[in-house]
């Protein structure tokens, strides 16, 4: 059930990324929704969840892009695995460490993805530094908001349900 929810989240992120293509800051794509979901699953589920989410999410993005199939998958698999390891070794429960984790994951993903393309001479990335910085900030912000929502929403619903239940009783 959890795996299905994760798969649905990844597919939803890929579709939403397509739909929100115009979401940009000064011409640069501000977020990579699939990467945010991968890192979130890795931090909450560990290295296996991270690498599986990275593989699936990366391959889906590759399939919808003109590049080499597997490049995004490779980068996201490594990032998912490392983020999962990081999540099991360190306590990542407050806002700043989470923000940094998402930003670092974005930077690592950019190095792997752009590095692999550049090493093979298949593609150049003008303005790589600026675009990575913009995305690191965007992904970090979105990741933190996602964590807050995932943690607070069920508790808020629970409280609401409890209050409603108390009122019904005579």
């Amino acid at each position, binding site marked *: 059930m959890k795996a299905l929810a994760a798969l649905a989240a990844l*597919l939803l992120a*890929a*579709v939403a*990324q*397509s*739909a*929100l*293509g*115009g979401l*940009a800051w*000064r*011409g*640069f*794509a501000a*977020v*990579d929704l*699939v990467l945010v979901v991968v890192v979130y699953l890795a931090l909450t589920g*560990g*290295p*296996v969840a991270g*690498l*599986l989410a*990275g*593989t699936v999410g*990366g*391959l*889906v*993005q*590759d*399939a*919808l*892009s*003109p*590049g*080499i*199939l*597997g*490049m*995004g*998958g*490779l980068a996201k*698999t*490594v990032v998912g*695995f490392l983020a*999962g390891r990081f999540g099991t070794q360190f306590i990542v429960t407050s806002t700043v460490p989470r923000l940094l984790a998402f930003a670092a994951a974005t930077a690592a993903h950019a190095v792997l*993805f*752009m590095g*692999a393309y550049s090493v*093979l001479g*298949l*593609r*150049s*990335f*003008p*303005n790589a530094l*600026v*675009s990575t910085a913009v*995305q690191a900030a965007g992904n970090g912000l979105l990741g933190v908001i996602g964590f807050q929502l995932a943690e607070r929403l069920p508790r808020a619903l629970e409280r609401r349900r409890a209050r409603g239940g108390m009122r019904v009783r005579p």
Partner: protein
Amino acid sequence: MALADIVQRPGLLFAGALLLHLGLISVQVTTGAGTTVFHAVVFGSLSEAQRGTAWATGSVRDLWTGYFALRDVRAENARLRDEVNALQVQLQAERARAERADAYRSLLQLRARVPLETTGAEVIAAAASPSFRTITIDKGASDGVEADMAVVAPSGVVGRVTQPGPRAALVQLIIDGNAAAGAVVERTRVQGIVVGLGDGTLRMDYVPATGDVVTGDVVVTSGIDGLYPAGFVLGTVTRVSRGDGLYHEVAVQPAVDFSRLEDVLVVRQRQAAAASAAEAVK
């Protein structure tokens, strides 16, 4: 080894996933260009999901804007917009014809230009990966769309088809970091190559330092690349600065607003572009 045992050994799983990806990549790189069956099938099915999403959101939007708000006006508006689009494209073709005729009148006898055959398409999705600047259109191989066909909008060049699926196609935008087009400054006929920078802007390379280029000049396709028909607007020069040596550094603002792109035209006759290229070379 049971599945549970594998899950307990993340290192092994990680190595397996890496091998899978490296295998995938190496197969593609060594065989060079061309779409794999897996890529086509996955892209085809996922583009159907994108089409479904676009249809669902479009239906809700249409219901609201087309029925509740502007029941009759919308139909008329759509018809008029199509007319305007068609006229703007016609205008561009006429303008290209006129400026080329001016340039060659004294040198060559008048040539009949190859008329462009186009197919209208709707944009159903933007890029799935932020590292690429692409769009997905709702026309594919079944509509006669092929790889390397030029895609234009009434305001100018959009990009080229890189991956046609059965009922959808992936289009690399001209602003993508790896896109390029043969270009010429309309006013002075100074040639160069316009490349995308990935940040929504363009740069015109290989413009000689002696070339006459100023801010505000319109840059159009030269047709020399064999992909884009000649005379279509790429953008406007926003900055010209002295480069390192022999060339100017020319910044170009794209003519097309890619954030609002909804309808495009696929130039179906690749030979039209090839003919433009031949003319340009002559």
